[in-house]
């Protein structure tokens, strides 16, 4: 679906949900899966905890729906709420969860040196876990920006809206995050060519 289609669809969903709580279910249905994935990616919450955060996200979205600024893509606004809820919950828990995601994304893997060689040797799941481990070792703001850019596929403008940071700051943060990812990868996997 094109971005403009998304925007038009979201505009209609929001318009309907503002007037009718049952119509709000459509928003939940549309964004449940991507938001849950996003919450898991930027935190080390368990699946159950992430679902709690997701529910809180949608309840917060419902309460603040009339304050949604139409000049901002709804998707970015919703991700911002999810982001804030996740950070807030994550800070409260302060515990690192051992139950890690099984299916992890590999787009970031290309950032690491020797990725192709490793890719030949390791299975997809193992590589996913490695990427996940590296991500979890990064500072929260580095992890968030990498997830949004490479795993969620957002552009700088949208990341700026979600993280509430100027686009220039996002660009700088992303550059540093990539560097930190590469360094962390090398530290955790000192022999890329096994």
């Amino acid at each position, binding site marked *: 679906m094109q971005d403009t289609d998304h925007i038009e669809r979201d505009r209609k969903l929001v318009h309907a949900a503002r007037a009718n709580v049952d119509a*709000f279910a459509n928003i*939940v249905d549309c964004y*449940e899966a991507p938001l849950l994935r996003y919450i898991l990616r930027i935190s080390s919450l368990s699946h159950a905890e992430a679902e709690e955060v997701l529910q809180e996200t949608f309840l917060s979205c419902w309460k603040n*729906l*009339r304050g949604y600024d139409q000049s901002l893509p709804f998707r970015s606004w919703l991700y911002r709420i999810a982001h804030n809820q996740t950070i807030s919950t994550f800070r409260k828990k302060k515990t690192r969860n051992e139950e890690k995601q099984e299916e992890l994304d590999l787009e970031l893997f290309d950032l690491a040196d020797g990725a192709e060689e490793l890719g030949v040797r390791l299975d997809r799941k193992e590589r996913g876990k490695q990427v996940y481990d590296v991500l979890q070792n990064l500072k929260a703001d580095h992890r968030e920006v990498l997830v949004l850019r490479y795993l969620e596929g957002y552009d700088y403008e949208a990341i700026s809206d979600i993280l509430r940071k*100027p686009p220039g700051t996002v660009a700088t943060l992303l550059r540093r995050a990539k560097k930190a990812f590469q360094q962390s990868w090398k530290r955790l996997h000192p022999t890329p060519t096994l």
Partner: protein
Amino acid sequence: MKSSLSSSVVSAIKEQHIAQHTRGYFVLKRSIFWILFGIAMLLGAKAVLLTLHVLEAEDLPLAMRQAPPIIVFVRSLPLLWIVSFALLSLVASWSVRALPKGYKWSLHKTLGINLLASLILGIALFAMGLGPVISRPIERMAPGFSAESHRNALWMHPEYGFLRGRIIEEPKEGSCLLRDPQNIQWLVLFEEEDLGRNIRIQSGAFVRLYGEVEEDIEGLRVFEAERIVPDRPPRWLHD
């Protein structure tokens, strides 16, 4: 088909009667930040105005010709107003960034713009002659922060060569008697060429002096003036 999450979210909303915030709530929330921004800007401009008023009252550029020691210089600065100005500019910047889309501006950019705006507004108010009007209530409530107090902090340091006071006796043969704000009498020695422009050394005149303290003569403190300039009549010497 509705997912279990959407059903549970909608049920929670209905069962717990979770209402949407009204549009007015969001308008009020945004207004608070705009108001905070406005107040911080105006108070920042006021801090600039008071800073300029104090610097004008203590004639800092004049004192700098004699270069006061750093400790005297720092004490003479209206640090309260300078710090207030900086803090209020920070508050104004934070308010702007809390507004919708305000985060698009970097802190240094909003801070720079707010500092500049408060500075321009403060200078404009100062140029309109509002310094004494604005500072009067502060002088009443907190004399320690008044322009007069700062003037003393800079000019009442005979040990560093700065003195101010009122001439209490007609001068004769290059000397006159002066009473300083602490009610200490000084014998001031001077040469005619030490006098600044537009000054007449006569009884009742308020003056500031550069120079140095000399040995006491018959229990009277002595100050040898290198330069004497007029001073404004201060409140402390109103008989």
